[in-house]
Every structure is written in C-alpha cells, then in structure tokens.
C-alpha cells in the first residue's frame, strides 16, 4: 500500500509541472487555434536559461524563475509577432510545420552554442527528500509543485479577474466577435503566446534540478504537452491542470506496476483512447 501511495504522490508532484506545460500549450491553442510543436523546445530554452543563470551567476533555479518568466514572455511574444502572426489564416498543417521548423532552429542553435552534452544542475537539495507518514517527498519536486500551484492560482486570477485576462478569454471564445468589441486581437495573441512560452520556460526552470539538460529534450515534452492538453480538452485551462496531474500519476504508476520502459507507452495509449472516445477531452466544453 505504501508503494501505491508513494507512486501516487510522486506522480502528483511531477504532474504539477506537467500541468504548467499543458496550460501553456492550451492557452496558445485556445487563443490562436495553432498547435505549438515548438513548445518542448521553448521549455528546453527555459532549462538552459536556468542552467546558465545557475552556473554563471550562481542563482538558485527556483529563484531564477523571477528572471526566466519575464524573459521567456518576451521571447514568446517576439516569436508570435515575427512568425506565428503571419500564418494565423494559413492551413493548420502549415502552422504546424512552421512551429516544427522553429523548434528545429531552437534545439539546433542550442546544440551549436552548448554542444549536445548532457548537463546536470546539482543543487544542495537535488537529491534531498523529506519523510512524512512513511512516504518520501523529493525536495526539488515538492518545492516545484508548490511554485506551480502558486503560478497556476495567479494565472486563474489573471484570466478571470483582470481586463486583459477577460480580453484573452473573449478572443479565445470568438476571435471576430472579440475584434468587433474593440479588443486588439493581435495584441492578445502576442500576450497569449508570451504567457504560453513563459509557462513552458518556468516548467523548464522547475524541472532543471531533476532532469538531464540537453538540446534534444524538447520533443519528449512537446509530445507530453499534447497528451495533456488533448486529455483535458484543447483550450481548457482547468482541463490541462487535471490532464497534467493524471499523466504524471499514470506515468509513475506505469513505471512502478508495469516497467519504466513501458511507462510512456501507457501515456500514449491513454492519449489514443481519449482521442478515439472523447476527442473533446475531459473539459472540452468549457473553454478557458
């Protein structure tokens, strides 16, 4: 029973970060109807940013998100302004290919700058853990879960209560109607992509103490982000939060009860089942 709860807890802790990745993708999809295949690569950029800040300036990875969030927001906004805005009315497959191309550019540029060596960010608490009721809580994962929780709460508040948040939701609901109501749709798109990128970058920062850092890590997270958002319902923030936790738990349960090699197969199998039987996802109806 201890094993069950242990894997449940570590699944939920990892799932928090997954939720962050998924929420970023879902906001971008909700507002622009563009599936961002460069999402994992943006996360990778966030990881390297954190790694750079840690090794060069000695800034703690969890503190560095204060720098990562605004920088990644700018980065995402620029990507949107320069590239994505031009294909908003193009065929969906062309949008997908454009983001694939951007992802390739990011991961390979990073490979030229930092080589493809695996990098490890070791902090004093990287392998630390706390025991509670016989279940061990990994320190970095627990801290990152708490931070994720705070960020998600702030994001809800932003989307629900502020004018800009409401404008973003309006754009997601109906782009043309929002435009008629005097909302600057292009600006909302830039903000949405900026938000998505900063969430992905933050997730990258939060997982950098526990994962290997290398330029090609992005595609694994891009795939995970798709699974999470489709599971939750494309465009639904609550769905993505739930989806992230579910995928985190499914992975850790799969690793414990089946084998660690097959845990990703479990995730993709869930993905296909959801696509087939409930393509709108868990929260498909309620958009953002």
């Amino acid at each position, binding site marked *: 029973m201890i094993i069950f709860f242990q894997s449940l807890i570590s699944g939920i802790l990892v799932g928090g970060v997954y939720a962050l990745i998924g929420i970023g993708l879902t906001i971008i999809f909700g507002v622009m109807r563009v599936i961002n295949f460069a999402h994992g690569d943006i996360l990778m950029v966030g990881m390297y940013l954190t790694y750079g800040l840690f090794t060069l300036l000695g800034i703690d990875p969890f503190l560095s998100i204060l720098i990562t969030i605004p920088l990644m927001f700018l980065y995402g906004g620029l990507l949107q302004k320069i590239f994505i805005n031009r294909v908003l009315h*193009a065929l969906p*497959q*062309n949008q*997908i*290919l454009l983001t694939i*191309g*951007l992802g390739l550019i990011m991961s*390979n540029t990073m490979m030229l700058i930092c080589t493809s060596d695996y990098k490890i960010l070791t902090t004093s608490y990287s392998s630390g853990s706390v025991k509670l009721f016989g279940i061990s809580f990994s320190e970095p994962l627990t801290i990152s879960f708490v931070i994720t929780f705070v960020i998600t709460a702030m994001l809800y508040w932003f989307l629900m209560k502020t004018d800009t948040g409401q404008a973003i939701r309006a754009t997601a609901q109906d782009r043309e109607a929002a435009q008629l109501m005097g909302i600057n749709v292009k600006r909302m798109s830039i903000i949405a992509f900026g938000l998505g990128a900063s969430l992905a970058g933050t997730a990258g920062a939060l997982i950098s103490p526990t994962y290997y850092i290398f330029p090609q890590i992005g595609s694994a997270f891009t795939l995970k982000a798709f699974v999470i958002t489709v599971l939750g319902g494309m465009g639904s923030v609550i769905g993505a939060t739930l989806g992230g936790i579910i995928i985190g738990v499914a992975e850790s349960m799969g690793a414990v009860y089946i084998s660690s090699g097959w845990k*990703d197969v479990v995730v993709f199998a869930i993905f296909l089942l959801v696509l087939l039987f409930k393509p709108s996802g868990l929260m498909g109806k309620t958009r953002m």
Partner: protein
Amino acid sequence: MNVNRISANNNWSSPLRMVTGIAVLAFLFLFPRFVESPYALHIMILFFLSTIMGESWNILGGYAGQYSVGHAAYFGTGAYVTMMLMQFRQIPPWYGVWAGAAVVVLVALIIGSICFRLRGPYFVLASIAVAEILRLSAMNLKELSNGAEGILATEIPPLKIGGVIVTDFLSKVPFYYTGLAFALLTIIVTYFIQHSKLGYCFQAIREDQDAAHSLGINLSLYKNIALVISAMLTSLAGSFYAVYIGFIDPSTVLPLDVSVQIVLICIIGGIGTIYGPVIGSLLLVPLSEGLRSNMIAQAIFKSGMVSEESGMGIFLRENLSHAHALIYGILVVIVILFMPDGVLGFMKKMLARRAKS
C-alpha cells in the same frame, strides 16, 4: 488551384519533355559507369532514398491531404522486418523487403482504423502517438528487436538467380540501381494515381472532406487506400536504408525526426505534385551532405568570404557539419512564410509571371 495542377502536368507528351525525360533517365542509368567515386554514388543513393520517402508520403499527405507526421512507423517497421529476417532467420533481404511491406500494410490498416476517425490537427497528433508507441515497443521488446542496441547486419548473402550470382552487394553499384528502381517505381505509382479516378477521389478529399463525402466518396475507404500505398512504399525505403547502411536501432529508424524529415522533403519541394519531392530531395540531400562533410565550409573559405584562420572561420569549420538540422529548420520557416506551395510551386509562379510580362 486543383484544376491548374492537373492540366499543368498533362502536357508531358510534348516532345521537349520526352527528350528531357529520356536524357535524365539515360544519365541516371549510365551514371555508375562513368563515376566510380563511392562518395558520389553514396550521395545519389541518399537522393533516391529521400525521393522514395518523399514521394510515398506525398500520396497520403499531398494528394489525399492527410498530414501524417508518423511515417517513421512504416519506415522503421519495414527496416526492422527486413533486418530481423536477414539477421535472425537468414532470409535474404530481397524477400525480406516484401515481407516488410506486407507487415507494414497490416500495421497501416490498424493505424488507419484508429487515426482516420480524427481530422486535422487531431489526426496529426494521433499519427505521432502511434509512431512513438512503435518506437518505444522496439526499444522494450528486447528479445524480438535487440532493443536500444539495434541490429547490425553481418553480411548480405549474394543474390543468385538460377545458380548464377547476379550481384554480391559488395560495392555501392547494386544499391544504386535498387534505389533508382524503387525511386522510379514510386514516381510511376504517383503518376498513375494523379491521372486516375483514385487520384481524383484523393484530391477531392483533400480539398473538402464533407463535399467529397456528399458526392458519394467513401472517405475511410479512400483514405485507407492512400495510407496503404503510401505506407508500403515508405517501407521499401526503410528496408532499403536498413540493408544499405547495415545498422538500425529505434532512434535512427523510428524517431519523430524521421517522420518530420519525410514531411519536410515534400513541403520544401512542393506537395501534391509529382516532382515536388524530387526537387525537395535535390535541394536537401546535397545540402545536408555538403554540410556534414564540411564541403560547404571549405567552399566558403575558398571563395574568400571568411578566412579559415579567423574566429568566424574556426567556428564555421567546427560547427557547420552539425548544422544540417538547423538549416532544415530555417528552410522550412522560409518556405512556409514565403513559398507556401514549395520551391516547385514558387518556380512555376515566377515562370508564369515572367511569361505574362
């Protein structure tokens, strides 16, 4: 748009086109007689391989409009079946190739029955997921596929017909002709599809699924036909690659990168056209090989743009050989933003504009 495409390719019987076609074919058939450099042959073989991959994807993606980003599944399955039969069962690859194609047809029908219920972006995501499941299975089913270690071909048995040794596969020449034959096969298949009722049905589905459905086209039947043809030809490419390179593992024949690369060949060349994938391969293969072998860096030094000793020169010499994926990325972005019909479409447009003025 559609009508233009069909009629533009209909005047192939004009004498000039026929002469060029025959000249190109004669050149390709005689090429190994004049050029003995194994490296030149290697580049040509890669060009054929890329053409086979591009043309096969084109049937599903370009004509039927189903953007599969999971074609590595068929490439890898073909490669694995051929290789496993050759290494573990001593079945020569020229039988293995067809066994691979048969297995791939089965796999494609299963994948089709899952993925074709979905449309647009959801179809893309499902096709990726299925390919990933296959890759992870190849990693984990160690007793069947050797897992992450991959399979190394120890030797290829010589091809004998009636007791006479036709070829022993020791040089690159037999691979050259096999590649050429497969590439021509895929082009001919594409040609016949484009000019048949089947091809019109595919294109109707691409242009508007619901309209095609209301005209009585059985969507799932035709999508599955397109997938099966496309997957079978892709598996030929996979088997050919496996035997030619002599080594496969899940991360070289089954990853997402392979699927993406297959799509890029078509996108950069021009999708839904017979020669688009050929143009795409003609651009991408020399480019990536030139970068990989540092030939392009050498050319930059020779042209005097950057001196070899300068900091920039050292940077180029050390890094340009790893930059082919970066260049792919930049090319895709440029093509999508500025030439949405691919290089072939762009050239046609430019020619038409010049003809007008």
